[in-house]
Structure formats: structure tokens, C-alpha cells
């Protein structure tokens, strides 16, 4: 039983990483109905920027906000330069463009920082604390806490501020919002910036565990896809709950289901994606879509 609890706790911790990346995916989906395939690579790149800052001697807690601001600016810039020209194009075009962006960012990271995995500092100590009979490290608890804080901040921004209202209005009713004086296109750019910053958090959380290298987020993004789909792809709360569920499920399957082990955990995430899409396409928190023809 104790080992089971142990697995759940460490599953929740990895789930926190998936949750923040899934949250970033949901933000962009809400802004323009698109899954951003480059989200993981953007997060990886932001983490490299953080590493450069820390290597220059900056304190972790100073480097963190600086990185998030740079990631935000990068997200806005990418939306302005790359996404805006194809904003009204069919989904297929957008998917291909974000895939191109993913390889471009991945290659740039390899070009600038190399492919050798690097260790990344963590602000949380590796000491453990007894939690209902299971040993949880401060590292695990820290990851869970950070993803919780990010969710609350995003929730407050979207639901309790005028800017959040404008963001939501611009994505749901672009024409009406434009008539009311909201600069819709800039709202999209803001959405990209926000998503980029939230994604960067997941990169910063993942790097101490996975070691930082250009392909670090390639598997994490699949788990984040699974989390976002499970949560209903348009619900921020769903993304976080989905992330935690995926983290725990994958961890438990790796530990207890014979034949899964470490290398087929990704296949479990794939199975979750397929099962949700076929059985309950709206996920846990999504609404059924009605389309006018």
C-alpha cells in the first residue's frame, strides 16, 4: 500500500509538468482553435535561456521571472511573425506551420546550445517528507505546488480581469469584439505570449528531472496532448486535472501492469488519447460542440 501511495505521489509530480504544458496548449486552443505542436519546443528553448542566465551567475529566483518575460515576448513575436500571415488559413495549414516551427526551434536550440544533455538546477531540495505514509520529496511537492499556482493565476487572469474578459471575448466572438474596440489580433498575440510563458514553466520543472537537451520535450508533449484531450482541450481546469490523471496513470501502469515498464509508458499516453477521442471526444470538462453548416 505504501509503495502504491509512493507511485501516486511521484505520478502527481510528473503530472504537474504535463499539466502546465497542457495548460499552455489549452490557452492557444482557446485563442484560435489550434493545437500548437511547437509548444514543447518553445518551452525547451525558454529553459535553455534560463540555463544561460543561471550560468551567468543569476539567482534562480531572478532568472525565473526574467525567463518567463522573455518567453512571453518570444510567444508574442512568434504569433506576429509566423502565425499571423496564416491566421485565417485552414487547420491543416496551421498544423503544418506549427510543426515547421517545432523543428525550426528544435534545430535552433541544437545549433546554439548543442545536443549534450545538461543538468539543470532545481530550487527544491531532494529531502523527503512523510505524507500519509508515503515518502514525498520536496522536489515532487514543489512541482505540484507550482502547477497549482500557475493554474490559479491563469484562472484569475481569465475570469477576474478586464484583460481576461477581452481575451475570452476575442476568441469566442471575434467580430463582435472588434466592433466593441478590442484589438482581436493583439489578443491572439497575448494568448500566444501567455501560453509560451506557461509552457516555459513546464520546461523549467522538467529540466532537473529529464536533463536539458533539444529533444527533452518530445515525449512530454505527447503526455501533454493526452492531458489536454482528456481534459476536454478547451478547459484550463481540465488540462490540469487531465495532466495529473495522465501522470498517475502512466506511473502506475509502468509499475504494476506487466509488460509496460518504462519504455511503453508513452504507449499508455497514446492509448489514452485514442480512447478519449473515440469514446468521449469532448473529454472530461469539454462541452459538446455544435456546428452550424
Amino acid at each position, binding site marked *: 500500500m505504501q509503495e502504491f501511495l509512493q507511485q501516486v505521489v511521484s505520478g502527481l509530480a510528473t503530472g504537474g509538468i504535463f499539466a502546465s504544458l497542457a495548460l499552455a496548449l489549452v490557452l492557444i486552443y482557446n485563442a484560435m*482553435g*489550434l*493545437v500548437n*505542436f511547437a509548444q514543447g519546443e518553445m518551452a525547451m528553448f525558454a529553459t535553455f535561456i534560463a540555463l544561460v542566465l543561471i550560468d551567468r551567475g543569476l539567482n534562480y529566483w531572478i532568472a525565473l521571472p526574467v525567463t518567463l518575460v522573455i518567453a512571453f515576448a518570444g510567444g508574442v513575436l512568434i504569433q506576429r511573425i*509566423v502565425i499571423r*500571415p*496564416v491566421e485565417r*488559413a*485552414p*487547420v*491543416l*495549414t496551421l*498544423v*503544418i*506551420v506549427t*510543426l*515547421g*516551427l*517545432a*523543428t*525550426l*526551434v*528544435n*534545430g*535552433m536550440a*541544437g*545549433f546554439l546550445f*548543442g*545536443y549534450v544533455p545538461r543538468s539543470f538546477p532545481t530550487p527544491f531540495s531532494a529531502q523527503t517528507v512523510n505524507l500519509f505514509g508515503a515518502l514525498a520529496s520536496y522536489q515532487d511537492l514543489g512541482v505540484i505546488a507550482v502547477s497549482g499556482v500557475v493554474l490559479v493565476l491563469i484562472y484569475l487572469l481569465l475570469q477576474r480581469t478586464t484583460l481576461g474578459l477581452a481575451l475570452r471575448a476575442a476568441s469566442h466572438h471575434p467580430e463582435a469584439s472588434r466592433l466593441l474596440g478590442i484589438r482581436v489580433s493583439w489578443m491572439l498575440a497575448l494568448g500566444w505570449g501567455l501560453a509560451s510563458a506557461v509552457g516555459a514553466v513546464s520546461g523549467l520543472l522538467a529540466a532537473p528531472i529529464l536533463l536539458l537537451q533539444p529533444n527533452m520535450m*518530445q*515525449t512530454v508533449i*505527447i503526455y501533454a*496532448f*493526452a492531458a489536454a*484531450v482528456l481534459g476536454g482541450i478547451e478547459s484550463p481546469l481540465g488540462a490540469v486535472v487531465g495532466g495529473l490523471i495522465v501522470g498517475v496513470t502512466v506511473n502506475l501502469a509502468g509499475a504494476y501492469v506487466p*509488460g509496460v515498464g518504462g*519504455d*511503453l509508458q*508513452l*504507449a499508455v*499516453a*497514446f492509448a489514452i*488519447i*485514442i480512447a478519449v*477521442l*473515440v469514446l468521449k*471526444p469532448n473529454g472530461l470538462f469539454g462541452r459538446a460542440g455544435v456546428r452550424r*453548416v
Partner: protein
Amino acid sequence: MRSVRQAPASYLLVLVVIVFFVGLPTVVTSFQSAEWTQVLIFAIAIMGLNILVGYSGQISLGHGAFMALGAYTTAILIHRYHLNYLATIPIAGVLTGVVGFFLGIPALRLSALYLALATFALAVITPSLIKRPEELTGGVRGIEILPAQPPDAVNSAFTAVTGSPAMTSDQWLYYVSLGIALVLIWLAWNLVRHKPGRALRAIRDGEVAAAAFGVNIAGYKTLAFAVSAFYAGIAGSLYGLTIGFVSPDTFPVSLSFQILVGAVIGGLASIPGPLLGGIFTFWLPIVSNQFVAGQAWIPDQVAAVFKNAGPAVTYGALLILIMIFAPRGLVGLIVSGYANLRTRLRGAGERGTGQLPPDPQTV
């Protein structure tokens, strides 16, 4: 003679291209033939993806997985059951096509976005899925395929033409791939010109309207998936035979990606597009690396990094640029460039060709 003179210019172009590809191994080395074999194989896989993405408007980011299935089918049939390698190629194609058909059924319920997501995940997990049944697939070590020897008649004909002592396995496989590629391109051309092609394009441009006109949506969409997978399976089978070896690392995510890049760069919804895309995606990393390594002013370290990161950067940048500025790909650029040139030559007085505008851009 009159019918020859009246044939459209494009037929002449096709003839030139065929002569070029048939004659190629007689003038280049055996190693270079093997490189061009890979170009042809990529062209086949890209053609398959083009039918799916360009004509039916569905998307797959997991065609590398279909290629892996085809390659492993061939490898296992040869290795365990000692089948003739030529017989394994159609088996690999049909098996992959059947799998593609069954994957096309759940794909019917998914929007383009979800389909992209699911097939992307499939491409990512393919290497670890292959590793699992170790007895069948050889695990991480993979399976070796012995080089295929040309039949005596072909061998003697080839030596008579080129004067070389013997035809190598690479040269023989080049001709096998060329023959199969020509047949498959011809089949694709026929498919898209006739009823299925019209139905697929109707579905792509307006599913509800197509259904209202009695087009069997589910049937055609799964058909597109099956045909597309069939092409990828054949390509995978040839790929395994050419490189003589299959292992999980032969089929990384980047392979699926390379196929997509080829389809987009060549030009979606066009028949010559995949061939151009195949040439482009295969030669781009090689040529650009040689170029960078040959420049004296670029430091060696930078050149070494470029070798790893260069293809990703150029592929990514090209995908974005083409989608923004030339969504019809190289073929679109050539066609519109040719049309512009003709109006320019004919003079300003004669604008308009009196022809219908091309297909609306939907991809």
C-alpha cells in the same frame, strides 16, 4: 507523327523525366544509384501522403509508422520464412494498406486537428513499439536483409550497355524501385483524374455538400487512408531492402516529418509534386552540409553543429515560408511562373487565357 506533334508539352516532359531516370545508373556510380533509389522511395511515400493530405484533406503525421510496418513485414518474411524478396514487396504493401484501412475508421470521427495529434503520437511511439516483440523484430538490434542480386538477363543487358563487369545489388534495386514508382505514380494519376479523385476533392472542399450530392464520405475517406498506407508500405519495404537493415532507429519521428515536408514542398494535390519533394528532401541536407563544409570561412565547429541541426532548421524554415508564401509548393511556383512568362511573351494586349482558374486552395 501528327499525333506525336499534337501531344501536350507535359507528355514530352514526362518522357524526358523517364529517360533521365532510366539512364541515370548507367552514368553514375553504384553508390549514387543507391542514393537516387532513396529519392524514388521517398517519392513513393510522399505520393501516398499526398493522396491523403492533398486530395482527401485528411492529415497524417505518422507515415513513418506505415513505412516501418512495410519494412518489417519484408524483413521478417525474408528472414524467418525465406520468401523471395520481390514477393514480399506487394505483401508488405497490402498488409500496410489493410492496417491503414482499419486506422481510417476511427479517423473518420476525428477532426483534422485531432487526427494530426493522434498520428503524431503514433509516430513518436513507433520505435518503442517495434522494440517490444523482440523475437519477431530482433529488438534494438533489428534485422539484417541480404542484398538482392539482379537476375542474369538483366545483369547481362546492363553490362552490355555500360561495359561494367557486373550489375550491383544497388543498381538492380534502383531499377526495381523505379519500375514500382512509375507504376504507382501512374495509378495515382488515374485515381485522381477519375471518379474517386473527384469525390475526394469534393469531400476535401466541402464535406456536407459532397454528402448532399451522394458521395459516400466514410467509404472514400477510409479508401484514401488505405491507399495512402499502401504506398507507404511499399516505400517502407523498398527502404528496408535498399539499406539492407531495419531497426527501431531507422524509423524516428523525423522520418514521418520528412515525408510531410516533401509533400508540402513538392506541392500538395499534384502528381509531379511528390517526385520533386522526394528529390528536394533527400538532397537538401546532403547538399547543404557539403556546401557548409566546403566554405573555408565557416569554422569547423560551426560546420559540425550544422550537420546535426542544419536539416531541422532548414526544413522548419522552409515549411513555414512555403505555407505562407507558396502554399502550392514547387509545382505551384513552376506552373504560375510559366503562366506569367507566357503572358509576358505574348504581350500586354492579350491577358487572360480563357481557362478556368485552378483548384481553390484549401490546404
